């Protein structure tokens, strides 16, 4: 828990996107269907419309602030509620001040425009309550706990990311893949997002992975996908941990793109019982220091396997095989 030298506002501050409208260069105005943004997932996915000609989008947002913020005897004055949208990958940060609406100052409303050319992948949006406290203006006294995500790459408003899978023949494909022509898949973690390349030259693998066949086919498929996901999680973890930015005092920083997300997600399994910041320092120390990196490998493997859903897929396969054998025996 952080300590603040001034009084903060207790309670929950929440943010909600109430409508989204796509705007194009020829003044097209296209309100997004509610299926394109999800209040539960807290994700906006303009890609779900299938439209690609929009230039910017306007979001109407509303925030709910604890009533105590505007109570006459509160220690806060000049109350402001601002929504901040940012994306580390493009160094973009925009904000908008909301205006108090109904419900005795508990509900604040406003709008925010996002320009597509300013963003690459996922922008996050949060709400902050700001006030003058003890004569100091601009103090943040509360903020939303869970960000909204504006996902420019997804086709559905889901928080969890789907793996990007590309089918390509390795023999004739991109230069770096040619050396891997005998393997069924390869993971590329160098870009904006990790990508799994499935080798079309490996006969049958595309059909197996993409197909929906007999129950045995599907069991093998699920197992294969679990294995693939494990590979991906392992690869992304190593990529993320291997390319850290280090402060002058030796403290490693969380990367600002997906690499940071991966680390925050996996570190609790790799170094349990430590806050993620400390876990990051610990893993970095072990990797770059003289000892401790080898000991960590089983834990990295554990974290990746769990996320790849290997236990689930494997036990389903074993049970499935059992029942097939029983059927064959009978």
């Amino acid at each position, binding site marked *: 828990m952080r300590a*603040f*030298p*001034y009084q903060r506002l207790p309670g929950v501050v929440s943010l909600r996107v109430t409508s989204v409208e796509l705007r194009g*260069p020829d003044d097209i105005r296209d309100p997004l269907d509610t299926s394109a943004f999800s209040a539960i997932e807290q994700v906006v996915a303009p890609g779900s419309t299938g439209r690609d000609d929009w*230039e*910017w989008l306007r979001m109407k947002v509303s925030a709910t602030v604890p009533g105590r913020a505007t109570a006459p005897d509160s220690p806060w004055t000049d109350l*402001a509620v*601002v929504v*901040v949208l*940012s994306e*580390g*990958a*493009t*160094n*973009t*940060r*925009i*904000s*908008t*001040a909301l205006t108090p609406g109904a419900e005795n100052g508990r509900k604040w409303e406003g709008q925010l*425009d996002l*320009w*597509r*050319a*300013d*963003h*690459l992948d996922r922008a996050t949006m949060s709400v*902050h309550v*700001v006030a003058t406290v003890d004569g*100091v*203006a*601009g*103090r*943040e006294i509360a903020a939303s706990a869970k960000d909204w995500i504006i996902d420019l790459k997804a086709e559905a408003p889901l928080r969890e990311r789907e793996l990007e899978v590309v089918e390509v023949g390795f023999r004739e494909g*991109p*230069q*770096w893949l040619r050396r891997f022509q005998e393997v069924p898949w390869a993971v*590329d973690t*160098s*870009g*904006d997002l990790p990508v799994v390349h499935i080798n079309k030259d490996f006969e049958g693998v595309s059909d197996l992975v993409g197909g929906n066949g007999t129950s045995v086919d599907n069991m093998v498929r699920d197992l294969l996908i679990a294995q693939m996901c494990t590979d991906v999680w392992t690869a992304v973890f190593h990529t993320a941990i291997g*390319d850290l*930015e280090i402060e*002058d005092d030796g403290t490693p920083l969380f990367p*600002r793109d997906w690499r940071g997300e991966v680390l925050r997600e996996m570190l609790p399994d790799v170094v349990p019982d430590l806050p993620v910041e400390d876990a990051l320092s610990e893993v970095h120390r072990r990797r770059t220091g003289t000892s401790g990196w080898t000991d960590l490998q089983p834990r990295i493997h554990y974290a990746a396997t769990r996320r790849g859903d290997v236990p689930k897929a494997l036990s389903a396969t074993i049970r499935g095989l059992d029942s097939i054998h029983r059927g064959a025996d009978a």
Partner: protein
Amino acid sequence: MTDKPNFLPERLALLADLNAAQYLTEGLLSGKEDAPAIALNKTTEPLPHDGESRAELAPVRDLIDDAMYQFRDDRPTNADAWLAPRLHATLRLTRREAADRRIWNYLALGVAPDYVVWRHMVAKSEDGASKVAVRRFQGPAYTQAFARLWWAAELFRDGPDYAPVVTVCGIQDMLNTGLRIDMVDHRPTAQAMVRLMDRGTVRTGREVNALVAAINASAATLMYDVIAPDAERDGRPLREWIEAAESAPAVPRRDLPIGPYEEKVPERSVDVLAVHFAALFAEAPVRGRPGADEEAGGEV
């Protein structure tokens, strides 16, 4: 020394990290070999805006040639302030396009490996062997030779005015740490920092680092977006500026180029933050004696 590529295609392109990696040989990094231009260009992908004038390679190469010529007898670090705004105004990229590391890989390996070696070669202390760090060719935006210049220009320009970029590039620590901190994404914060440099309040690398640390600490509890609001973001001027690239002449070599006609940062917001930062800096601990290391600080 690494030479200009012996083959330059007409258009700029994208070079994926995995393809770039194979050209980052010891020979190239120590400035003894060239990048194999023809082979390298076989592994590239076209830019999304391949058909537009801003995808032409020659204007970029000419600009880099001019930078190396103009600063041939000077410290190569001094070329940053000259090149950053001009590179920005020549490429005319959106942030979305600039966030794609592949274009920077291509500039460093396919267009001007000789520049990267010339600018970023550092002498090793132990055995005297000089080398360029890999991250100058391929790496995050705050270290890659061209990405750092482009982003410095993008984050520190005041609308169409590139003058603040020149100030920032004048202190290497500002360029190096400035690009790594989230706060400069807020334009009034970036401009207020520039103002302190223009006024001479902060001059050395150590002073810049002390200022950045103080602002960082202060930003943990203060919302600069509220005490120093920015103008509303409007993407149209940028789009028009990019479209105007079709008929734009080469960037001026003597005068500063003119950037997109975006609204300037509100003067009042810069005033408020400049006062605040000056107060923070007055109380910040500065390593060593102020003014002791006027040179480019921790340049690597």
